[in-house]
């Protein structure tokens, strides 16, 4: 004689479905953010061949470009642009300061080349002292809120970017130039393109 017992279904317990979805979605988003951050950190500076989008630089008092206190990169199309990131606390920057100024004075009369100095994470009194010390005359301004350096993803100073007439980055010099000829070689290449 066998009697079968009625089987009672145990009520389902555990983490509800909505909570699981929220947790997994959160985890995926977190991992995506971390992955993007790591990718960006490993990217290095902008690479040659990339088109440099527009940015504007407010110049230090006493500096101007074509009568304006602000330089808009988009207005420089048709000219070779040399962008130099520097800081007054940067000793290697001092090595190349005079060479950059000499190169600028060489090309300035042609009107085909523009040099721009971007002062990175600096204090204004010391930056002004640096500009006076090396008698730098090409347009210079502070990188307010480090927006421009973040776009270029600079790894330090000095770094110099050579951009052709079409706004395309062609060459990056990481570290100081050893002489003026080195600078002029890069500019001449772009002028002859």
């Amino acid at each position, binding site marked *: *004689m066998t*009697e079968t*017992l009625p089987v009672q279904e145990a009520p389902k*317990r*555990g*983490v*509800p479905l909505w*909570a699981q979805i*929220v*947790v997994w979605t*959160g985890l995926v988003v977190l991992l995506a953010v971390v992955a993007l951050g790591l990718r960006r950190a490993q990217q290095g500076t902008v690479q040659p061949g990339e088109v440099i989008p527009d940015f504007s630089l407010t110049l230090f008092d006493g500096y101007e470009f074509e009568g304006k206190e602000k330089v808009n990169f988009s207005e420089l199309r048709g000219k070779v642009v040399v962008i130099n990131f520097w*800081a*007054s*606390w940067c000793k290697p920057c001092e090595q190349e300061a005079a060479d950059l100024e000499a190169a600028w004075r060489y090309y300035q009369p042609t009107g085909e080349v523009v040099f721009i100095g971007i002062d990175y*994470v*600096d*204090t204004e*009194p*010391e930056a002004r002292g640096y500009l006076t010390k090396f008698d730098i005359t090409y347009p210079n301004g*502070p990188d*307010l*809120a*480090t*927006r421009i350096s*973040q776009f270029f993803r600079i790894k330090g100073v000095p770094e110099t970017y050579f951009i052709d007439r079409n706004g395309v980055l062609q060459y990056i010099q990481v570290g100081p130039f050893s002489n003026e000829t080195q600078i002029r070689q890069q500019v001449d290449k772009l002028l002859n393109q």
Partner: protein
Amino acid sequence: MKRLTFLFFFVLVLALAVGMPASAQSPNPTPSDDEVNAIARDMYCPVCENTPLDVCPTQACIQWRELIRLKLSEGWTEAQIKQYFVDQYGARVLSAPPAQGFSVLIYIVPPIVLALGVFIVLRAFRSMHKPLESSARETPPATTPDNDYLRRVEEELQKRD
């Protein structure tokens, strides 16, 4: 009376003469290192990441501290100085980013994640305890089929005796 008036003015002039050098001094004497570091410890220089400004030995950070000293001597408040640095170098100079824009997430997400985690753990604990409690409460009825069978067997045995 004249003497009294003269004495009064003499004392007044003397008091002013004594008081003048003190008031002629700068209203904000050179701020001390402690005053500068009280602000600098909440800030980070982008050049030397992960090193608070008050202890960072690089030239850039020394210049930043001197700038804080200069601003303090000019009568700027801590909030004004921090805002100046944010305007110049970006919000990343602050150890605690302002609750604006994307940075708001820093203040919202962790508490939500923590609350969610506590909720899930509590729920998991509750579900682990329930079966024990329910089994303790649900005592088997006196007459289950097995018991009934045993009772009948015992009755049969007694009859045989």
